[in-house]
C-alpha cells in the first residue's frame, strides 16, 4: 500500500483547489474566459451532468413505457415520484389554478438536481456535480428567465415590475426606501442566492468529507501509535457525515425546486 504522507510532512488541509479535477478527454489547450485561465477539455463533472440527464430519462422512460391500471414496481416508483413533485411543490405552492403547466419543468428540475447531488455519494463517482459553481449558475439563469418571463407574460412589463417592487399596503416616504430594496431582492439577488445555496452546500459537504478522510489517514500514518484512536474516530465521523450528506443532498434539491415554485407563484400572484 502506498502512503500518501511521509512522517515529517505538515498536514495540508483540503482547499478549493481540490475541486479542480484534471480533464478526462483533451486538456492540452488553454483559453481565458472572464479573466480566468480555463482548461479546454472534458472534466468529470461534465460527464456526470450528462450521465444524470440520461439516468433521469431512462428511469422515467422505463417507468412510463408499459402503463397498466395496476402499476408494477417501476411504474409505482415513477408515479409516487411524480405525485410528490406535483402535489407538494406544484399544487401546494403555485395553486390549483396555474400549477399544471409548470409541473414538467419542476419535475425535471427536481430529479436532475437530485441525481446530480447523489453523485457525491455513489461509490466510484463520489464527486458532487454542483460543487462546480458554473453548473449551478446555468440552472439559476434558467429559473430566473422562467419566473420573469411568466410574470411579464401575465402582468405586462410595467405591471410585473410594479408587482415585484412595490409592496402592497405601503405608502408615502417608506416606499422610497422599500422599492429599491424589493427590486434588488426580487429581481437582482435571487438568482445568485438560489445558485450559491446549492453550490455552497455541495461544496462544503464535499470539503468536509475530504477533511475527515485525509485527516484520519494523516493521523494513522504519521503520528505515534497512541494517536491512532483519533484517526479511527475521524473515519467513523466520515461515515456519519456521509450519511448526513445524503439527507442534505435531498433537502437541497427539494429547496431548490421549492424556491423555483415560490418564485413562479410570486410572479403569477394577482395584485391586491
Amino acid at each position, binding site marked *: 500500500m502506498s502512503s500518501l504522507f511521509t512522517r515529517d510532512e505538515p498536514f495540508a488541509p483540503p482547499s478549493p483547489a481540490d475541486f479542480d479535477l484534471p480533464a478526462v478527454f483533451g486538456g492540452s489547450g488553454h483559453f481565458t474566459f472572464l479573466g480566468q485561465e480555463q482548461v479546454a477539455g472534458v472534466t468529470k463533472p461534465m460527464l456526470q451532468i450528462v450521465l444524470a440527464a440520461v439516468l433521469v430519462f431512462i428511469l422515467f422512460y422505463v417507468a412510463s413505457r408499459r402503463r397498466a391500471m395496476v402499476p408494477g414496481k417501476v411504474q409505482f416508483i415513477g408515479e409516487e415520484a411524480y405525485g410528490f413533485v406535483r402535489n407538494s411543490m406544484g399544487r401546494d405552492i403555485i395553486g390549483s389554478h396555474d400549477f399544471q403547466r409548470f409541473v414538467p419543468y419542476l419535475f425535471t428540475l427536481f430529479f436532475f438536481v437530485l441525481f446530480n447531488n447523489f453523485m457525491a455519494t455513489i461509490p466510484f463517482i463520489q464527486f458532487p456535480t454542483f460543487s462546480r459553481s458554473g453548473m449551478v449558475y446555468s440552472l439559476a439563469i434558467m429559473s430566473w428567465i422562467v419566473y420573469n418571463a411568466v410574470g411579464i407574460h401575465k402582468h405586462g412589463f410595467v405591471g410585473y415590475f410594479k408587482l415585484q417592487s412595490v409592496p402592497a399596503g405601503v405608502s408615502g416616504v417608506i416606499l422610497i426606501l422599500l422599492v429599491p430594496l424589493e427590486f434588488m431582492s426580487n429581481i437582482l439577488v435571487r438568482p445568485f442566492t438560489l445558485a450559491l445555496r446549492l453550490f*455552497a452546500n455541495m461544496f462544503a459537504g464535499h470539503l468536509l468529507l475530504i477533511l475527515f478522510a485525509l485527516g484520519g489517514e494523516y493521523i494513522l500514518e504519521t503520528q505515534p501509535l497512541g494517536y491512532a484512536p483519533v484517526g479511527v474516530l475521524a473515519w467513523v465521523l466520515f461515515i456519519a457525515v456521509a450519511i448526513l450528506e445524503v439527507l442534505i443532498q435531498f433537502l437541497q434539491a427539494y429547496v431548490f425546486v421549492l424556491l423555483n415554485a415560490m418564485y413562479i407563484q410570486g410572479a403569477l400572484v394577482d395584485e391586491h
Partner: protein
Amino acid sequence: MDGNLNMIGYGLAAIGPGIGIGLIFAAYISGVARQPEAQSRLQSIAILGFALAEALAIIGIALAFVL
C-alpha cells in the same frame, strides 16, 4: 498545521444563521404540535424561512474563501 483566520471569522458569522434556523424550526415544530393538520402549509413557510436565513451563512462561506 496552517490555519486561516477567515475560517474563525466564518465560524463566528455562522452563529447568527444557526440561531435563526433553530428559532424557525422551533416555531414550526410547536406550530405542528398544536395544529397537526396545518403541517403542509407550515412546511413550505418554514422551508422558505430556513432558506432565507441560510443564505447569510452561504454568503459567509463564499466570502471566507474569496477574501
